[in-house]
């Protein structure tokens, strides 16, 4: 038996110090970036399949260089994320870089919650207007200042089960969905697919989900060649006829034959994923989970039913939350990190999103990526939420829209009344100054 170690206080303390030193060195050596790598704090709101993909992208850029190491913090999507980000920026001790929906930036920037991007520094890294579609690049600007750099466009699209649609006889010679150009034709398409589907022709989940109702509505509304305008102080500019026609069409779709009148988001996913419906109105972010079901699927942009090709979308965009005293060396590395992610965003395309960085979407590899390439043109047609301090993904604006129109879809209430109710609520919001900038100092 070994003799017990005689442990004096001095020996214990020197041993503990040695252990702590070893641990410190080991932890430095353990960083992919090495001992000199700076840690970049990165907040985002991507969870589920998107979260896994983003982790892969971060691991990739961490492993590819030794200057920085990105430490991501993932927060819950929607209100919780944006509240925390606003408070962190208000305190001036925000993370080095964050992901926001491009549509939310307009509410943050005037109040000084975001720092601006230096376009010259980005251009040095190969990121400028020429590497984005105009609509997506311009969305990052408020006035002359660039506040966000888009990673992607994630539009609302139409997925379809090729086997069911073939049986319904709605595919063309190339095996793709036959062109449809009017609401009536789309209703016929839905009925034809419903006739051979186990449950409904089309899956669309909306109950209790204002964002879902808004995504489809705004796609249809902007297909009239119009956009909703929300001037500060109000009133909102909404074309009543176009709004009622769009909502009325949604009401016609949800007739319990073409699509269920009482499906929530998860029910719709389950219906399409189990092969009980042939069409699915959804966001591109669901593509990977649908592919994992081994369904025979293809996808397309939502057909232009009211004359003008257009689609609701948003962009996950990189922003610089306000820091009171940013470290310039760290900020340099943030620019590099963003450029590295953009250039490596092919994996993001595989997850279904349309990368904003054109060299990726113009590559031969992307052209071979199906069904992504079949809806890539959506990047040219994107329509974001009408800009106002209270709009955007995960905002109360979308929840308010849902609250106003849900009864139209669920119980056949009058679309015109619902639009009037929505307008009243929006006008009330428009009369309220941007709370991030109530005195209008940043305007």
């Amino acid at each position, binding site marked *: 038996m070994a003799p017990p170690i005689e442990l004096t206080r001095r020996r214990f303390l020197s041993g503990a110090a040695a252990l702590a030193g070893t641990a410190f060195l080991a932890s430095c050596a353990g960083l992919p970036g090495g001992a000199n790598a700076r840690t970049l704090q990165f907040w985002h709101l991507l969870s589920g399949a998107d979260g896994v993909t983003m982790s892969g992208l971060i691991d990739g850029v961490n492993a590819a260089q030794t200057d920085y190491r990105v430490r991501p913090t993932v927060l819950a999507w929607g*209100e919780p994320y944006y*509240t925390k980000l*606003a*408070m962190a*920026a*208000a*305190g001036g001790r925000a993370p080095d870089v964050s992901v926001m929906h491009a549509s939310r930036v307009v509410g943050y920037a005037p*109040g*000084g*919650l975001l720092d601006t991007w230096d376009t010259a520094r980005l251009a040095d890294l190969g990121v400028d207007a020429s590497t984005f579609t105009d609509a997506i690049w311009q969305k990052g600007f408020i006035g002359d200042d660039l506040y966000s750099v888009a990673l992607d466009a994630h539009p609302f699209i139409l997925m379809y089960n090729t086997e069911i649609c073939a049986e319904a006889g709605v595919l063309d010679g190339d095996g793709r969905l036959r062109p449809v150009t009017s609401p009536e034709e789309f209703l016929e398409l839905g009925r034809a697919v419903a006739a051979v589907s186990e449950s409904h022709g089309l899956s669309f989940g909306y*109950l*209790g*989900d*204002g964002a879902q109702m808004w995504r489809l509505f705004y796609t249809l509304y902007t297909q009239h060649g119009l956009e909703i305008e929300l001037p500060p102080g109000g009133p909102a500019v909404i074309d009543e006829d176009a709004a009622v026609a769009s909502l009325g069409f949604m009401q016609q779709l949800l007739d319990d034959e073409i699509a*269920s009148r*009482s*499906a*929530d988001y998860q*029910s719709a996913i389950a219906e399409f994923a189990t092969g009980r419906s042939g069409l699915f109105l959804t966001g591109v972010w669901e593509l990977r989970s649908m592919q994992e079901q081994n369904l025979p699927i293809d996808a397309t942009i939502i057909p232009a039913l009211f004359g003008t090709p257009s689609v609701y979308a948003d962009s996950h965009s990189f922003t610089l939350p306000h820091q009171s005293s940013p470290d310039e060396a760290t900020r340099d590395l943030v620019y590099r990190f963003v450029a590295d992610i953009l250039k490596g965003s092919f994996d993001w395309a595989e997850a279904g999103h349309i990368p904003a960085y054109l060299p990726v979407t113009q590559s031969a590899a992307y052209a071979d990526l199906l069904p992504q390439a079949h809806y890539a043109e959506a990047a040219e047609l994107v329509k974001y939420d009408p800009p106002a301090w*209270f709009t955007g993904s995960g905002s*109360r604006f979308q*929840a308010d829209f*849902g*609250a106003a129109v*849900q*009864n139209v879809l*669920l*119980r056949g209430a009058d679309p015109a009344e619902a639009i009037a109710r929505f307008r009243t609520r929006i006008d*009330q919001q428009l009369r*309220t*100054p941007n*709370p*991030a*900038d*109530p*005195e209008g*100092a940043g305007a």
Partner: protein
Amino acid sequence: MTLDTASGRAGLADSAATRTIVTGRRAGHRRRHAGDRGEQRIAWGFLAPFLVAFALFLVWPLLHGLYLSFTDQSLTGAGGSFVGATNYIEALGDPVMWRSLGNTAWFTVLSTVPLVLLALVMALLVQRGLPGQWLWRLSFFMPYLLASTVISQIWVWIFNPQIGAANGILEALGLEPIAWLQNPDTNMLAIVIATVWWTVGFNFLLYLAALQNIPETQYEAASIDGAGEWRKLFSITVPQLGQITVLIVILQVLASLKLFDQAYQMLGGIASETTRSIVQYIYESGFVGYRFGYSAAISYVFFAVIVVIGVIQALVTRRRREHS
């Protein structure tokens, strides 16, 4: 006053104080005063942590909130200018605030009645009727231990329009399915049902404790006089539960006025015109809309409503007591 009396008694028990009684009344007084001061210091020492916490986390936020309600302070740090009564004027003319107050009041009425009556019936059944009391006590109280997030998830599933148990029961009875949480005619009812299931256990426990305090001899005496079970219920049990019922109603009204978490989670903020509570509107204004000043003003309007309800309750209770 109570402190002085207590310390005076303690001083008498002290051996030094006992000696002063022997050696002279005047000296005894001096020593007792010195003892009083020492013990007062100790008492304040014990009270200090609570007083600090009370001042820091209750009094200061209350006063600061009142101040904020007169400013355009934003959660984002912007604003902060004094705007006078602007927020209050806006709040009093805000239809969403009034609707939210109305929803809260309606929920309080809808939930308080079953939460008191059901708790009483359950307690009576367990105390006097059902065998296996421990199992019933456990079953009735268990939901109360669950977090609101858990019960919200459970009831969202139960009320799911396509696969939920609630519609399963309706269909088994030959009735049409309902979109419980999405239909504005039923969503408040759905929240009330979930809340009653969740919280009735607490009131049940209070009633059970009160029932156990009624002396068994009264029932025995009544039996000897030939009283049946119903007679005993209405002549002994119910009158003896008067005080606890008043307490339960007061506690329940206050609890129901705080409606927020289960409704918010079950509805995801949608269908809010019929279910948005005043607390949810305070949260939305402050934390989603970033308008801290306005949010504080609505809080104080709600505070005023609670004070009015409290005064009415106090008056009714006093009149009842004087009458009895």
